[in-house]
């Protein structure tokens, strides 16, 4: 492989970098007039990137194994792209305002940098690349969490996130250093045979995996989630809960399957405990939240538990179901965040009790929110039901009966609190409900895409087949 084709092999990364540099230069060169078109242009450029990199190509490596590509990664990156695009569409409204308008260039650039970091994490073939990707996906994210710098909550959230992210990546590096000490290489392809479940490697593995659990916000590494989700600007919260989590959980799975295959007994045990804790703790705390962003934070912790349930089986089917779950989760969660974001932009209200009587004033928004809640809760015929069903099936296949039983019981508990939101909107009445809200066209399109996704994905088996086709090659 010659010099240039090493770079060109990384199609998604190079394309995204080109978009980023273009937008940065545009931000720097365009004057007052030009910046009016910045957001539409950014959206078009990113959409073009999404479409251009949508088709999988031949698996292979470049940079001597530093970058390791498999077709299934294109699927995952495509899902992340779609999610990011939806987040951008929902954020447009915010960055048209006086308050945040002068930071739109930075918002798009930094978000895309974190996305690039996630790409590198997904396609890395070496622990160094994984680590750089992880840092790239967390440091700029902390700055956009703290973007509303005159809001104390946002600043606090940013500080909490950067400190805990730094600490967790420190723990992770410690683990990696011991792995290197016992194995003598950091290439993913060289490591599996050298890992032989000796105590030192297990310890290193635990330290390493804690860093990734932090990114996925699995219990007991979840404590940052609620505060950061609440303090961050709503669109950034949406990005954190969907894109950041989705990519991290996929990377976790890749590493567990590819590198730590010999430690399967150990990581299944760890995951077992972590899943039970995540689903239960997430649910119990979600029950008592009134702030809807905190509520979704805890709901996303329990969703992370379900995602990890797809990993535990250790089979290709488990991998398929997990990618499918991420795909569905993107639409359900972003639909909810789209509604929350448009209500917050216009009225500044973020509590579930404020949502009382929403149906009488905003029937469409309440309907979309209802669909999102049904899908997150896993009510049949919506996509969320199918994704949960497949995840359970994958875990059952390997005999995790108790785990699935706990998960099913928790799903029923979760239905209760998801329906509380629906009840507030449709049944409860309020003296001063949120007035009728006009959202801009971009947000409408994003909500339309999410709704379509929630209703249709479950009904078209072809999506599942496609993911399965690519994930079996792993």
């Amino acid at each position, binding site marked *: *492989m010659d*010099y240039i084709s*090493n770079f060109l092999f990384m199609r998604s990364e190079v394309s995204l*970098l080109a978009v980023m540099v273009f937008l*940065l230069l545009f*931000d*720097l060169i365009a*004057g*007052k007039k030009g*910046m009016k078109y910045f957001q539409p242009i950014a959206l078009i450029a990113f959409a073009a990137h999404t479409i251009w990199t949508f088709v999988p190509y031949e698996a292979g490596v*470049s*940079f*001597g*194994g*530093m*970058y390791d590509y498999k077709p299934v990664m294109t699927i995952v990156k495509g899902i992340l792209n779609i999610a990011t695009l939806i987040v951008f569409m929902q954020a447009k409204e915010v960055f*048209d*305002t*006086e*308050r945040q*308008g*002068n*930071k739109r*260039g*930075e918002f798009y*650039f*930094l978000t895309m*940098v974190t996305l*690039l*970091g996630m790409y*590198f994490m997904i396609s890395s073939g*070496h622990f*160094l*690349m994984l680590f*750089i*990707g992880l*840092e*790239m996906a967390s*440091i*700029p994210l*902390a*700055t*956009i969490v*703290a*973007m509303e*710098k*005159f809001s104390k909550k946002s600043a606090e959230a*940013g500080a909490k996130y950067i400190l805990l992210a730094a600490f967790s990546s420190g723990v992770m590096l410690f683990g990696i250093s*011991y792995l290197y*000490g*016992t*194995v*003598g290489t950091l*290439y993913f392809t060289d490591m599996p045979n050298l890992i032989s479940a*000796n*105590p*030192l490697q297990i*310890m290193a593995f635990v330290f390493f995996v804690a860093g990734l659990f932090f990114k996925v916000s699995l219990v007991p590494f979840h404590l940052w989630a609620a505060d950061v989700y609440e303090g961050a600007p709503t669109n950034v919260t949406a990005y954190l809960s969907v894109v950041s989590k989705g990519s991290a959980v996929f990377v976790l799975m890749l590493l567990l399957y590819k590198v730590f295959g010999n430690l399967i007994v150990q990581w299944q045990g760890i995951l077992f405990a972590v899943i039970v804790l995540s689903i239960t703790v997430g649910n119990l705390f979600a029950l008592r939240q009134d702030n809807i962003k905190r509520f979704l934070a805890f709901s996303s912790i329990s969703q992370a538990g379900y995602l990890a349930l797809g990993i535990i089986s250790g089979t290709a089917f488990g991998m398929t179901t997990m990618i499918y779950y991420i795909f569905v989760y993107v639409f359900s969660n972003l639909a909810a965040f789209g509604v929350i974001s448009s209500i917050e932009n216009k009225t500044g209200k973020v509590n579930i009790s404020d949502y009382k009587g929403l149906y009488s004033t905003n029937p469409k928004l309440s309907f979309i929110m209802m669909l999102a809640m049904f899908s997150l809760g896993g009510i049949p015929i919506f996509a969320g039901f199918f994704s949960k069903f497949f995840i359970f099936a994958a875990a059952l296949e390997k005999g995790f009966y108790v785990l699935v039983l706990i998960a099913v019981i928790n799903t029923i508990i979760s239905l209760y609190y998801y329906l509380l939101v629906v009840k507030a909107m449709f049944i409860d009445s309020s003296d001063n409900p949120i007035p009728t809200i006009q959202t801009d066209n971009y947000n409408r399109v994003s909500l339309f895409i999410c709704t379509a996704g929630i209703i249709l994905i479950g009904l078209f088996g072809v999506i599942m087949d496609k993911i399965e086709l690519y994930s079996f090659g792993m």
Partner: protein
Amino acid sequence: MAEQIIFYILALVIAVFSIMAVTSKKVIRSATYLLFVLLATAGLFLMLNYYYLFAVQVTVYAGGVMILFIMAIFLTHKPGDEFKTKMNWKVKSSAILSVLGLLLSGYIVVANVTRIINYVSGKEMKMQELGVTMMGTEKYQFLLPFEAMSVLLLACIIGAIMIARKEKNNVESNNDLDK
């Protein structure tokens, strides 16, 4: 023999100043103690004949990062006097857990120390070798992380500037020079 003495001096400096850096009640003193730790670490690299790492440690950490720390400290209102730690049950229980964790991992490391492969060859790493390794695209060469670092650094510059620069609270004055 001389090497051993230097090693113990450096190790002592690192250990003592690390503890002083975390226990000092004044931030600026902590930063100074940290500087000594970083310099002593640079000395360790020198002992191992890692000249490049030594240069990195001195210029980037003892130079750049320390300046950043000190500037960040100067941004604060107060020098951080009278900072009292409360010893409630949360602090106590987490302290006990941390010590237990430390003992466990320490025991594992000590008991399995033979499993760690000894890589330190002691021979000098040539700068030319490093250059080739850093710029190459073959296996055991690191061009991709090198390029990825530039994007990461760029993101850090832009993020830091976004957080720290003055707000103008005006959509139109996006670029400073337009006014």
